[in-house]
Structures are given as C-alpha cells and as structure tokens.
C-alpha cells in the first residue's frame, strides 16, 4: 500500500487541521467541521477524540491504584491440609516458589502479577501527567509506551487463572482443599480496570498541540 502524506516532512497535517475526523470502523476520513459526524461510507457515528478521555482514564487508573492495595494484602489462595489452613498473598506465592527453587516459574509469576500491573499503572499516570507537556520521552516513544501497556494488559490475569485451576483441581474435602481468597476479586478488578483505563486513553491527545 502506497502511503502519501499531505504536508511537508517537517510538519505533518493532523485531522483537526485538515478539518476531518477518522471513522474508527472503516478508517475513512470524514470531512466535517464539527466534533461529531456520521460516516458517509459505513454510517457509524464517530467522535473526533474519545469522549472525556483524560478524566475517564484518570478515574479508572486511580480506582485500580486503590484496589491494588487490598489485592496485595488480602490472601488470594487458601490451602487447607487436614483442616489447617495456610493462606498466601500474591507476593507470598512468589516467595514460596523462590524457596522451592523454581526460579523460572517464580520470575514468570512475579513479572505477570507484580511487575505488569505496577508498570501499567505507573505508565498510564506518566502518560496522563505529561500528555501535553515536554517530557523525558518524545511523542513517538510515548505512543510506543502506550502500545506496550495495551499489549501486556491481559497477562496479569495469570494469577487469577492459576488460582481457578488449583481450586478446581485440589478439592478432596477435609483432607486437602484449595479455595480462592477475597484478594482474588480485588486483583481481577485491578486487571480489568487497568485494561478499561488503557482503552479509554486516546493517544492522539499526545500529538495534539496546546
């Protein structure tokens, strides 16, 4: 596909300056002066930038930040051997794997359930704070950072699945029983909320001037 940009190399023309808006479904550029228009090609209703993008992303990111605290304090799994229960939190499970010398799987779980959510929340907050300002990263790097956040988003769900599998499998009544803890709900909510937050962020706001 041949790509041709209107405007010179030094200054690209964006859709606002061109007087159009992008149809998110069929990717046609709709010529319209207003912020909302129906696409002449496919008929879907489009808005120039995602609605209330910044405030919505702020709200969801802060909500996931607050939920992240109980997600780490409350136990996510409870193993009962002969009626004796031993509860483990997310980081407790990682330390347990480390003690059993399963280093590779320990790193996988640590990255998926600790590094990824923290990285996601920090990156989103960084993008939100520096959206219209000069910052350490340039616009291109910020767009890359955002696509990374979107890409790794779902991988923190790993621990939720591990608990689901263990709880479904190890269930021998009194002898040996595994149940999920309430931390699991908070943790799953954190993952879902950060994914919703990254979906409501509009990267074009990084490039818009003023």
């Amino acid at each position, binding site marked *: *596909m*041949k*790509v*041709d*940009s*209107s*405007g010179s190399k030094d200054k*690209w*023309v*964006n*859709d*606002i300056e*061109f007087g*159009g808006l992008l149809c998110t*479904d*069929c*990717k*046609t*550029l709709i010529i319209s002066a207003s912020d909302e228009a129906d696409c002449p*090609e*496919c008929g*879907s209703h489009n808005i120039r930038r995602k609605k209330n993008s910044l405030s919505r992303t702020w709200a969801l990111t802060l909500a996931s930040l607050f939920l992240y605290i109980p997600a780490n304090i409350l136990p996510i799994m409870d193993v009962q051997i002969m009626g004796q229960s031993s509860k483990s939190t997310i980081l407790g499970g990682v330390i347990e794997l480390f003690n*059993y010398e399963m280093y590779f*799987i320990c790193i*996988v*779980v640590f990255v998926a359930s600790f590094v990824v959510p923290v990285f996601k929340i920090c990156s989103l907050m960084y993008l939100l704070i520096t959206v219209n300002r000069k910052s350490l990263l340039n*616009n*291109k790097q910020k*767009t890359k950072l955002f*696509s990374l956040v*979107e890409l790794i988003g*779902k*991988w923190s*769900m*790993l621990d*939720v*699945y*591990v*608990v*689901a*599998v*263990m*709880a*479904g*499998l*190890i269930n*021998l009544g009194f002898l*040996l029983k595994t149940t*999920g803890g*309430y931390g*699991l*709900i908070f943790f*799953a*909510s954190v993952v*879902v909320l950060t*994914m919703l937050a990254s979906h409501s962020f509009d*990267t*074009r706001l*990084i*490039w818009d001037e003023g």
Partner: protein
Amino acid sequence: MKTACHACGVVLSIEDDNGYKMVCPQCSTVLYGRNINMFYALMFSITSLLFMLPAMLFPFLEIQIQGNRISATLFESAKVLNDDGLRLAALIVICTAFLFPLIYMTFTAYLSFDSIVEFTMPLSDQTAKVVESMKHWQMIDVFIIGILVSVVKLVGMADISLGTGFYMLGCECFFMILAGSYYESRQFWFKR
C-alpha cells in the same frame, strides 16, 4: 482513499490494497498488516471453533492424590470459585476464557465470509466493532500459561498429567492467533 493514523491523527492518503505493510510516517504505528487474506481467516477461525467444544468438555489436567483420580474442566473450576463466594472472579474467568474467544472467532468467521461472498451479510458493521474489542479481551493464551504454572506448582504434591482438553486448548489458541493475523477489519470495506 483519505484516512488518518488512529494513534497520532496525521492525515494520510492511501492507494488500494496491494499487499504491503503500511506504517504511519509520523509515529510508526502499524496501520495495516502484511499478508491479509480473508479466506485463510475464515478457514482458521472455523478450525479454531471446532476445537473449542472438546477444549471445554475434556479435562485439561488430571491428578492422582492418594488413589483419588481428579480431573478439571474450565466450567468445574469456575463452579468451585463460584461456590467459594468468588462469583465475580468466576464470571471473569468464564467470560475471558470461554465466552469472549467464542464471540471473537464466530464473528471473525462471519466477517471473513462476508468479505469473500458477493452479497453483504446483515449487521456486518456492528459485528466488526465487536471483533475489534474482543481481540483484547480474549485470554486463552494467558489461560494456557496459567495451567502450565499450576502444573509446576503441583508437580511435587501429586501425580499430575496434562489432559486431552489442554491440547485442544492449545490447538484452539494456535488457530485463533493465525486467524487473527490474516484478518483485517478494513478489508471488507474495499469490497464496497
């Protein structure tokens, strides 16, 4: 056709589809992948759908503890979570590991069929929107890694083996990724 980059908003004009990858000149986001083939997308999405039923019905793990033989399917695991009072977690697991992949692949097959045949199928515009959002919310691949992590965790405790369902899940996931890589929602607009 005039279009704009969805990531940075720069206005671009593109010629018709000739099979090359298209990258935004300003922010280098990939706008249009290489090797788009809607017929392959249709074939692989149907294959993935065929693997979906056995993947859900056959147990993905089997263990032996003190003579007891236990196996688990996705629905049984979700039911245990539900019975433990974690209804929300059970709901998320069922949606992301079963419902969303099912919708994703069914609608991908529907739209690929739409772009191949001469006539236009009903509701294809709305379906295309759903496919784009389901792409992020299906988590079969995460589920597979989750099963493997639990195997490693349990390997010292009991005699554990991967069941038929696990290999079915693997096939389902493989063909789902293939179908997704050949599918491009913009493709069926060139038809009109």
